[in-house]
């Protein structure tokens, strides 16, 4: 019980630090892709930049527009942040550690329906953006909120369909069960290449990242749903976006890249604790690669138009998802009967 509490606290701190340093990483990656230097004033290589940004956020005036709905204006960023942080609980970050005779499971909770829990949290997260955008009483914020809602509801379908095929293979909805299946039968990317592609595209849309960042598209909507937000409330929205990016990278690694599995590690005969720590390191390496991938895409691919986004979601990804389910079912039937 205490071990789980400590683990969750550590996870909380790690999630927040990764989110904070993703803002620094994003600016460095952008600078690298655009042949610039990027932030280098605060500390060596600008390493203290997130702290400076955070301090700036806290010090700014917390302003509520005159005709805004005050309660919902307060509630919006809170929902966005809380749901983003809650998702990490069910992700298996590693195997088990044995410290002083107690076994610590490096997963906050392992419910039978792990992947559905992730979906549930994502779907509640939409309210953070919708309520915040609506409560601002600003046309641009409202448009951003409406875009976010329709985009996230549409892409949840494609994401769900891509997961169905994976669940058909693994026979479980539990995230640790899916990792165990991959350890025994090879990584998900090999068996579900199309499913992985669909999931990846939908993950970009669900986290409102470029090329699907229409809800906060600055060329059309000023700042989108967070136009009217200032100070740490704006900070919470930005933080929630980076936290979501971290969590979806972790979910992609777990579902399609074996999670904490390192091929060939079990045959080396290492101490279980050392193996578990290497597993955690592998999990974080995979996750960080996908965070980098998110940034890489953002600074390389131009933004879609909103009707193109809807066409892609409903007319391409959903039929492809159904095709993937049929293919998976057919192949499964042919080879396992």
């Amino acid at each position, binding site marked *: 019980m205490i071990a789980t509490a400590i683990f969750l606290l550590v996870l909380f701190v790690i999630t927040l630090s990764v989110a904070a340093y993703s803002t620094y990483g994003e600016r460095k990656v952008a600078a690298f892709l655009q042949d610039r230097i990027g932030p280098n004033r605060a500390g060596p290589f600008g390493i203290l930049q997130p702290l400076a940004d955070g301090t700036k956020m806290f010090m700014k005036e917390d302003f509520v527009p005159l005709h805004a*709905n005050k309660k*919902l204006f307060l509630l919006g960023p809170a929902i966005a942040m809380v749901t983003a942080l809650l998702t990490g609980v069910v992700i298996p970050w590693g195997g088990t550690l044995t410290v002083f005779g107690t076994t610590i499971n490096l997963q906050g909770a392992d419910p039978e*329906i792990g992947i559905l829990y992730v*979906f*549930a949290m994502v779907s*509640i997260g*939409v309210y953070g953006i919708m309520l915040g955008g609506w409560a601002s009483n600003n046309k641009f914020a409202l448009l951003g909120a409406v875009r976010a809602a329709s985009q996230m509801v549409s892409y949840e379908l494609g994401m769900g369909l891509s997961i169905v095929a994976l669940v058909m293979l693994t026979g479980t909805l539990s995230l640790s069960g899916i990792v165990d299946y991959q350890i025994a039968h090879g990584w998900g990317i090999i068996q579900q290449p199309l499913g992985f592609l669909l999931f990846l595209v939908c993950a970009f849309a669900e986290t409102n990242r470029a090329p699907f960042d229409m809800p906060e598209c600055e060329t059309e909507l000023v700042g989108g749903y967070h136009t009217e937000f200032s100070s740490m409330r704006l900070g919470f929205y930005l933080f929630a976006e980076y936290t979501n990016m971290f969590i979806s990278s972790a979910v992609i690694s777990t579902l399609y890249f074996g999670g904490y599995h390192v091929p060939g590690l079990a045959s080396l005969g290492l101490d279980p604790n050392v193996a578990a720590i290497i597993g955690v390191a592998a999990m974080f390496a995979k996750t960080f690669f996908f965070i980098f991938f998110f940034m890489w895409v953002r600074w390389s691919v131009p933004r879609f138009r909103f009707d193109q986004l809807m066409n892609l979601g409903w007319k391409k990804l959903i039929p492809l998802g159904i095709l993937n389910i049929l293919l998976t079912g057919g192949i499964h039937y042919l080879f396992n009967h």
Partner: protein
Amino acid sequence: MLAFFYLFAAISVISALIVVSARSPINSVIALVVCFLSIAGHYILLNAQFLAMVHIIVYTGAIMVLFLFVIMLLNLNKATEPMKTLGTRVAAVLAGGLFFLTLMAAIRHGINITPANEFDPGVGLVRSVGLSLFKEFLLPFEVSSVLFLSAMVGVVMLAKKEKVVVPKDGVEPSKA
């Protein structure tokens, strides 16, 4: 556990009352979302994890978002109350009171409800839900999927733009 039950029960009842009594539609919708979340909590207490998560994803995450979507697009943020005549109000109070009386009479003797079957904690897990859906209730399940499919096709048909044929003289035909 019992404390959690009372907590969720209180949240469900209070938020349901707010849904019907709130003047502003947006507050009603938010109260309904809270109500659905507390009902998902009840499912969790019954160990029906699958049902709880699907409930949150479908009702809270999709249907209520669409409700909110419509309210935002129509900009129904004014607290409005439709005008009701005295006659309607009296009739509503009478009908509601009579309904309440009937309900009370019906459950008066059944207060000591004992469960007909022993509670099975595995009943709401994915495995048992899947088995009962695809074995015991296969036909109703498939028939309802066909119903959903027909609803989808119907919506697509209604939403499709009618092709307006413009005659060569360039005058648009008036819609019949």
